[in-house]
């Protein structure tokens, strides 16, 4: 055998597996209603907290959730970050704000984009509202909401975030 032959030290191994995935009941119900332009969470029968998106259970109590509660597309900023790197597969250009938002009527936050805002003045307690895509583009996806934009409403005090009544925060 030749001494100077080039040794193999690495190989490329393509591993592509096909799946047919079916969303869980709670997710399916949620996304079906998002397709209609509605945000519908589920209330825990034990602790009364409203989960959005619903997962079919209250993770805290470990009980199934079935009661549906429509919540507003107005939210309060619970926390946020300004991101300077692109999201794989997402066209949004950095820097952009992603925030944990608690919709009026729910007790838990979900992550979404914030836009039409001054990145430097985004803050906890800030009021925001969904900017939906045109109805004809709605699909089974949260990005039916293009992003959230600031509302001209007073801030929710820090200690009340996630605890305001179902009807939403009104001054």
């Amino acid at each position, binding site marked *: 055998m030749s001494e100077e032959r080039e040794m193999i*030290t*690495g190989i490329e191994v393509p591993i592509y597996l096909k799946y047919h995935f079916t969303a869980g009941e709670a*997710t399916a119900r949620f996304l079906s209603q998002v397709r209609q332009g509605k945000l519908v969470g589920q209330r825990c029968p034990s602790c009364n907290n409203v989960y959005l998106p619903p997962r079919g259970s209250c993770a805290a109590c470990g009980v199934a959730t079935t009661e549906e509660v429509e919540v507003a597309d107005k939210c309060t900023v619970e926390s946020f970050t*300004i991101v300077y*790197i692109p999201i794989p597969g997402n066209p949004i250009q950095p820097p952009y704000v992603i925030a944990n938002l608690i919709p009026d009527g729910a007790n838990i936050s979900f992550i979404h984009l914030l836009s039409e805002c001054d990145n430097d003045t985004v803050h906890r307690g800030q009021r925001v509202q969904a900017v939906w895509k045109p109805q004809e583009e709605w699909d089974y996806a949260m990005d039916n909401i293009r992003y959230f934009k600031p509302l001209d409403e007073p801030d929710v005090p820090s200690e009340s975030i996630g605890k305001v009544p179902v009807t939403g925060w009104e001054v």
Partner: protein
Amino acid sequence: MANLAAVVGIGQTKYQTRRGDVSIAGLLREAAVKALEDAGLGFDDIDAVIIGKAPDMFEGVVMPEIYLTDALGANGKPMLRVHTAGSVGGSTALVAASHVQSGTFKRVLTVTFEKQSESNAMWALSSPHPFSPHLNAGAGGYFAPIIREYMRRSGAPYDVGIKVATKDRLHGARNPLAHLQLPDITMAKVEESPMLWDPIRFLESCPSSDGACAMVIADASLVSESPKPPAWIRGVAMRSEPTMYAGREEVSPQAGRDCAADVYAQAGITNPRKDFDCAEVYVPFSWYEPMWLENLGFAEEGKGWKLTMEGATSLDENGDIPWNCSGGVLSSNPIGASGMIRFAEAARQVRGDAGAHQVEGARTALGHAYGGGAQFFAMWVVSADKG
């Protein structure tokens, strides 16, 4: 009552971006053989093998214990594979210890690893899945808002994270196994590095590494058969809570506080800052040092950042409670092994075997790991003293 057990051997690979010279099995083997050599033992002396790693998608090998058994001398023995997200390295050490502490086995080998260069961390941690309702901006995108909330509550100055990032890299420069070797790092350099997820800058984030970490854990009756001093396992604890629930405290998760209280009670720790000589704590983003200082009771709520800024956690500033003398996760991060590296480095300290990053006279140390959305915790207390 648990049987007394100790770490009698530790082996680690060099951590680096890509270990292109070894197979997956070869990577684990290297750490395993070093741990056995450190313990003065061979594969025949081992009763059971326990491995751990983060998601199988990193290497694309499903349930890899099946393929790794030959490399780890596990044939004819029990072999177990643990997976508890980012805390897995710590959890694996605890599961391995339980094989001995339960009185079931006398001596076990435990190995954790990740060969992240085989794929891409961002992909492996969040491979696209249909109907996933969440926007995915990576681990930094998840943790940055929580860090901002910590900053808001504590009123910490903006440069606390910068200080941690600098300190841990200076520690790492003392550790020849550390992935990042940045002996000339300064706070200015960290501050100038690109912002990724405000307030997390590039240099305030952990790297992506290949590497493996192994330990031999032995029953007290066999400890003297290994030549080097043992690290006695004085407390073990794990806690989990759900990723999301209404009213969850994300800045200082209860699972972390409960886990610490449990492990401290077992080890007789009443004042962690005084009772520990050092700690190896899972800090993948710089700001998690002050956050965990508070969560783990080393500082009062809202005051953790002061310890950091005073240099209390710095070996180079002769701090009274050095954290992550090995350089920590900020210097080396083979995800599935990162937790065990914390546990092993804590053990190295109390064995007096930590080389240039040794804390003089260290007798008792904390090893800590967390994972998921800061919801899975694993901790142990090791000591030079049998207790």
